[in-house]
């Protein structure tokens, strides 16, 4: 088995008296899609924010590519990108301008060619000069994904990438992610409240509840362990117990 591309050990985050993430450990293998599942407030977003170096852990360690995030932030983030429903990109800039800024932040060269490639992938090649403010929510999500894959990351963190999308666009996004994973060997950490999507996308799932890992394995292993028919039933059972 190859060395994990991401290793999280005993990761904990406290905000005052409340504990958002409580001593969690998991790995992601190269090319793997790991689903991070749990009800609201389970600690999924805080975990991703710690993995991106935006929130400092109270305890525990995060290693990517064999390097410690606390001491090698720049080298690690150079090879990582993310997309989240909860952030956006400057509205007054065109799509091309926004992607150009991102490419420069990551020190990319041959930017124009790469922008063409990703816009084609997300089916927005005709919108290159469109002002971001004028995009629909579906186009905005595709732009966020274009931004995330633009820098050719080795790990992608996706926080509810298909939330607020209609089923057609959501399907296209999932298909795109699968295609990118297949062609680049990209590893992905994925959060979603759509259980079907989780089952479809994830090789393995980490189930969080009140900041702790309550189950870890494939969708099938988790449903069997809790004696339920599918992930949705597991989710409802755990969410209602909490």
């Amino acid at each position, binding site marked *: 088995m190859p060395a994990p591309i991401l290793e999280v050990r005993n990761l904990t*985050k406290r*905000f005052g008296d409340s504990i*958002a993430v409580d001593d969690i450990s998991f790995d992601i293998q190269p090319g793997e899609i790991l689903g991070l599942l749990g009800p609201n407030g389970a600690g999924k977003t*805080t975990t991703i*924010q710690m993995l*991106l*170096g*935006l*929130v*400092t852990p109270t305890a525990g360690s995060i290693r990517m590519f064999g390097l410690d995030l606390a001491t090698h*932030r*720049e080298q690690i*983030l*150079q090879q*990582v*990108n*993310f997309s*989240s429903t*909860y*952030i*956006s*990109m*400057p*509205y*007054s800039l065109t799509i091309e301008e926004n992607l150009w800024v*991102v490419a420069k*932040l*990551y*020190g990319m060269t041959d930017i124009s060619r790469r922008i063409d490639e990703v816009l084609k992938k997300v089916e927005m090649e005709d919108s290159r000069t469109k002002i971001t403010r004028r995009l629909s929510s579906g186009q905005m999500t595709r732009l966020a994904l274009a*931004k995330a894959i633009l820098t050719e990351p080795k790990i992608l963190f996706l926080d509810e990438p298909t939330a607020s999308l209609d089923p057609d666009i959501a399907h296209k996004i999932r298909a795109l992610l699968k295609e990118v994973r297949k062609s680049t060997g990209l590893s992905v950490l994925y959060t979603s409240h759509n259980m079907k999507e989780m089952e479809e996308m994830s090789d393995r799932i980490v189930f969080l509840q009140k900041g702790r890992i309550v189950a870890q394995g494939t969708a099938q292993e988790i449903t069997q362990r809790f004696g339920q028919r599918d992930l949705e039933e597991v989710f409802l059972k755990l969410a209602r117990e909490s």
Partner: protein
Amino acid sequence: MKLHRINALVQRHLFLYRRSLPRLMEIFYWPFLDLVVWGFITVYLMKFQGQLPGVVTFFLGALILWDVLFRAQQGITISFLEEIWARNLMNLFASPLKPSEFLAATMVLSIFKVAAVSVVMATCALAFYDYNVFMIGLSLVPFVLNLVITGWIIGVLTTSIIMRFGQEAEVLAWGMVFLFQPVSCVFYPIEVLPAWLQAIAWGNPAAHIFEGMRMVLNTSVFPAEHLAWATGLNLLYFVLMVGWFHYTFNVCKEQGLLVRVGE
């Protein structure tokens, strides 16, 4: 007209006054600063009984130079606010970008802003009042550079406070610099201030700059001592403020505030 509906709206705004910095500033901060600055200007004018040498030169020059400081500060703070408004901070700080690189970029932007605004103001002053800001001569250059650095220092301080306390504190982007105006002695000499306030003003690089500029206009002597004080104080405060920004940045990451600053 129903009184209960009017009452509801009045209460809705009064509720806000309990915890709204911008609204409290409207009541306490701005009237206080207006009174202090215009009060000292009045004292200055009364003292000299209208026999001020080159009154237009004094006030127009002071106004243009104050704007240099103000725009330098805004160049930093507004750039940070733009990222908050665009919900773009996470995109930036989840990239390899370092906080020091972010600050450096905002400082470059502030130079662009200062240059553009200075050209506009100098042109307008020449066109409307036949006032040439360059009549001060080459002495202007080191003082303007110092003013830009003072603006950066106030900009970094303001940005740190906004990052720590969130969007509620964004009004400081426009208000903070005016807290320094009375002790910058922009429109009056430092001797107009009471002794205790003079002591504070001498610790402000901007006060040395404006005193120095007045000395150039009055005596044509290059105020090397004021320039040295302004530069020394600026360097000291600049190092302290950049350190403070990094400290605040780390506190915000610790407390999860960086990802919530735009909420």
